[in-house]
């Protein structure tokens, strides 16, 4: 039985919506999962095959899935995080309006439709973005935050080697570094993702402040996943996040890509769905 409508790009001439791909449930259960890709990633291919495996899982039959897209190569990190924040505010603050604008006439949701549970899943730079967006939304006092949880794959919140990552991801060739050596590449993210950058220092301090006396539990990741052969980000613990799970035989880019025969990334997300 078909549980979800076809994958669609949200209808809007403007970014970020026009770069967001969505899988809407045929019979919604009030649960949403928002995926945020990483550096130079793609809304779908970063997570492939989450977009195929999740709709096929029985417990996800009623979930809506959003694969958020943004310029993860050239754009300023904090500016991108602000765009993500605004999108989440619209998606979770006026859910039925956004959903119905993108659903066929036969699949419209009631005007009071909203999500009961929201899961954010982020990879690499996406982890920094979602943390910054959630911190800002916390300061804005958004009530739906209490219903949200966070799962992170290979997070870059402790810094990343951006040039190496750019080489790998833009070509899809994991071997390319061995042939190119040092490449010429300029992006604001190179400085912003240095382990001692102002942006990352602020992110940690703001998180610690917001988490004082156990407040704002949505800012603590429920699950953090490291790649065994990580060469891009620093596999270090952030604030009061739980100790990470490591997936053996993975590297930075494939640690978040479940597929037939390699379901560990999916299994690590499943308890929070």
């Amino acid at each position: 039985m078909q549980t979800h409508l076809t994958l669609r790009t949200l209808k809007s001439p403007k970014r970020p919506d026009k770069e967001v791909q969505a899988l809407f449930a045929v019979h919604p259960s009030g649960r949403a999962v928002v995926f945020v890709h990483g550096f130079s990633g793609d809304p779908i291919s970063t997570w492939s095959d989450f977009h195929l495996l999740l709709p096929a899982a029985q417990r996800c039959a009623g979930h809506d899935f959003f694969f958020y897209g943004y310029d993860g190569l050239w754009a300023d990190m904090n500016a991108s995080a602000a765009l993500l924040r605004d999108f989440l505010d619209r998606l979770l603050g006026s859910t039925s309006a956004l959903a119905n604008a993108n659903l066929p006439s036969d699949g419209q949701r009631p005007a009071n439709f909203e999500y009961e549970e929201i899961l954010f899943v982020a990879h690499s730079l996406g982890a920094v973005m979602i943390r910054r967006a959630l911190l800002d939304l916390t300061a804005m006092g958004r009530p739906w935050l209490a219903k949200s949880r966070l799962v992170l794959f290979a997070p870059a919140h402790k810094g990343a080697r951006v040039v190496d990552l750019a080489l790998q991801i833009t070509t899809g060739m994991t071997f390319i570094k061995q042939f190119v050596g040092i490449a010429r590449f300029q992006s604001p993210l190179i400085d912003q993702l240095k382990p001692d950058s102002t942006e990352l220092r602020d992110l940690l301090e703001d998180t610690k402040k917001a988490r004082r006396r156990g407040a704002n539990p949505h800012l603590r990741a429920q699950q953090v996943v490291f790649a065994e052969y990580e060469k891009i980000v620093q596999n270090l613990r952030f604030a009061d996040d739980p100790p990470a799970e490591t997936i053996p035989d993975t590297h930075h880019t494939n640690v978040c890509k479940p597929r037939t025969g390699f379901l560990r990334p999916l299994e690590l997300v499943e308890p929070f769905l």
Partner: protein
Amino acid sequence: VNIRKANLEDLVSFYFGGERVTSAMNHIADLILAKGNEDLASLLRNHRFRSIKTDKERYLRAGMDDFLLGCDVLEIAILTGFIDPPEPTVFWQRFGVILGNKEARLYFEQYYPVKLPQLLALRLQGRFIQTEQEDSMLTSFMLQFLALDRGFMESLNGRYLLKLLDSFRIDGYRFNDIAALISHPKTFVERILLPPKKRTVPDIALQELVLFFQFAESLQKLLNGAADRPLVQAEAWSHYSYWFEKLGVKLNQQLGSALDRFLTWQPVGDELQGKVEIQIYVNQAKLVLHQLTIVPYSHLVDAVLQQHRLKRTATKVPAAKKQEALVKPIVKTAARKAAKKAQVKLRLRH
């Protein structure tokens, strides 16, 4: 929720919602209803007989091609039970009017033959009714196919790389110029990493080349997964048959030689591992291309069309005959020239 109705609405919105395809459908339907056969024949002519000159013609013909690509997807969707078979509604009647028109048929059956609109036309006439028995695997296949095709349509269709592979020259560049950029790993990477505003035709085409290899791998994986549904497999492949069948041999050669250039790369250090990994990458990509261009995925679609062609006794459209008569001498001369050239080549070799 009527899921099939919702699916149809989604497909129509994506494949037939664009300005160009809408304009073309309206214009062609209007000409058909007004019996403007000459105008329609002129618009949908074979460009080998008379070249396409005005921007308006190019726009409308591109819209017609969009329409035919959309028809491909509707046909696959009907076969897999993703949408209901055609009914006598205004929506389907409009498709019937265009696909059943003599000039339109010449366009997609003879001048620029595409298979799935022909099958959809047969469905609309009630002459082809086959559908697959629905199950969750088939639904999953269809959702995967649509996700893949959405990526193809948005990132590759009508863009630089495919035009270059189709022998176009853009801003003075041919496909070989793009392939040559692969020879130097540093140039390759620096072009791929250029900021969007600084990118020129070869930079964009190079990025599309990387995307095309990824697309081909996903398509081949999807087709292999549908091996137990040969007609579904055949129809899904036929949607891309312009690239993998009509241009198949050329595509294989051009992309194959582009891939070979990766093998000339030398690791920065003495890393043997890099050499091994690049060899695996090239072999895998070549295997995928070979399978997509050589394996006769579409034979079931061809068989259905052939069967219906046989049923149509001597139904060659008169207009086609006329154009054929015009073109025959040209083809004969071209064939004679080609034969002569081949003989000269042979002589030179010996």
